[in-house]
């Protein structure tokens, strides 16, 4: 393939990945999946009943892998029936998003029912209002992942079948979303009542912010907040994963010669080293700007 065509396809995949990353993170935030979930689960036990969706399907990687694998499977079946590509990918994503919705509902209902002794009420309006949002976000995530996987199979000639590629990308996006965006919700949004950067003291466990900017806080408010930073940052992170991992093999095409293959490995290692140094510099700069933890300062004064 022409290198220029390859770069064009890669750019398209990177764009789809950026959207997928953002929607994946916001989807998990509406339902409080993964990292923030432990505190939402703990809150009623600590006498803090809440109106927040408790979507404990599993960790994000398995639940995203599920919806992407279902989408890829249905799309492959439809493509086998000679359906058009857009129709196949759309219906595949729709089926996947609906099934994701059933998993969301069963986890919220199930977990609230299992908190009977803490007097946590089951608010049906939360289920009815939040589940469609979760389905919509998961539809966007799945269709973007299917576009990436389809381009890899058909244009870039990847040897793996579509359902398997979608499955692998599903795990990847879940892992990226879980590690990147969730921190914004789990560490900041849930604990806006304590000083910024103070960490989670054990005595604050379960004491999540339950009152909103207006009224009682719910998953909508959390996704509104996370759409400002956590979602986009997850999008950039996943977009970079897709783009950079594809870029090294598009520029240094291993199918041309073995030497090129090693050059692509070398390019990957160099990128990882650059990112590691860059991250270290950000961390040091942040530590210099915001200082050490309060506890450490107190200890120094006492000494």
């Amino acid at each position, binding site marked *: 393939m022409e290198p220029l065509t390859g770069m064009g396809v890669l750019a398209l995949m990177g764009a789809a990945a950026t959207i997928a990353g953002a929607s994946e993170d916001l989807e998990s935030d509406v339902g409080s999946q993964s990292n923030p979930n432990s505190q939402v689960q703990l809150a009623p036990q600590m006498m803090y009943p809440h109106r927040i969706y408790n979507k404990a*399907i599993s960790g994000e990687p398995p639940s995203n892998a599920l919806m992407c694998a279902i989408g890829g499977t249905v799309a492959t079946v439809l493509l086998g029936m000679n359906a058009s590509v857009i129709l196949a990918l759309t219906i595949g994503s729709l089926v996947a998003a609906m099934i994701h919705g059933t998993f969301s509902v069963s986890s919220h209902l199930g977990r609230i029912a299992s908190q009977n002794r803490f007097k946590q009420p089951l608010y049906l309006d939360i289920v009815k209002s939040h589940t469609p949002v979760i389905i919509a976000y998961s539809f966007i995530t799945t269709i973007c992942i299917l576009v990436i996987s389809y381009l890899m199979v058909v244009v870039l000639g990847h040897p793996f079948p579509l359902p*398997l590629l979608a499955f692998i990308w599903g795990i990847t996006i879940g892992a990226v979303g879980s590690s990147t965006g969730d921190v914004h919700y789990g560490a900041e949004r849930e604990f806006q009542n304590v000083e910024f950067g103070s960490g989670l003291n054990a005595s604050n466990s379960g004491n999540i912010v339950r009152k909103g900017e207006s009224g009682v806080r719910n998953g909508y408010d959390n996704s509104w907040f996370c759409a400002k930073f956590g979602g986009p940052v997850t999008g950039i992170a996943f977009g970079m994963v897709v783009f950079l991992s594809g870029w090294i093999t598009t520029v240094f095409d291993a199918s041309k010669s073995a030497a090129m293959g090693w050059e692509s490995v070398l390019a990957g290692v160099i990128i990882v080293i650059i990112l590691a140094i860059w991250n270290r510099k950000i961390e040091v700069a942040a530590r210099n700007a915001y200082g050490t933890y309060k506890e450490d300062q107190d200890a120094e004064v006492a000494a």
Partner: protein
Amino acid sequence: MSAGGSGEAAGGMSHNTIIGLGLLGALIGIYAAHFLGSYASFLGGIGAIASILWGAESVRRVSSYGLGTGVPSIGMIALGMGVVAATFGLAVGGVAGPVIAVIFAALIGLLVGLLANTVLKMGIPIMVQSMAEISIAGTLTIIGLSVAMVGSFTFADVLTGVIATGYIAVIFIAGGLAILHPFNGNLGPDEKQDRTLTTAVEKGAITMIIAGIVAAVNAGASGALTIIIGVAIWYIAFSRFYKLVKRDSFSVVGTGLLPNEEELA
């Protein structure tokens, strides 16, 4: 007791009944789907639901020893062991394939359970038995869904129709979540066995529907029948699940503000 608990899980249905139901139900379903012709391929899906039920109960039992965030990992390891055992059993066993896969799965599960308790020192008394059970349940789920997809468990058919096409990925993750999600989704101190197992049937029905969608393009299996029966089972199971949620919840309200301190006291 479950979340953060440290004792054996209790429940209305005895564990041995569920083992019998899961093992026999799955094997009968798989063999019937294989031998009774293409219209009977949905029986593979029914067999998968039986093994998912058993797997979910085993996850519930072993996770009650305070496993917490390890619940999803247990479900994934079930299907991980299952893939190895299922492909090995079907490859060498011929018509006895599923039975050989079950025996092989039990051996892998015993080994993993022993490693977990001796090397990792997890110290869960029922770990070895539970790992064997979860491994067998994962194996039977994979074979059951494969039969529902291609209509036979002959290794050549499964290899070309399920593994080479990549559908094994969806079997792996949908089967794994159907086994791990019921307990994970119902986690909490007031978790009840019947509600968790109803969730398992509901999620099992979803895997059956997916298998039916794949079967639609395979001549050896009946897609429409599998999808219709899967949807019917899902509807019945979900309705029952919602009834049990209303039974077990502290209160079910359309909307409302947060309870105040007096109401919580």
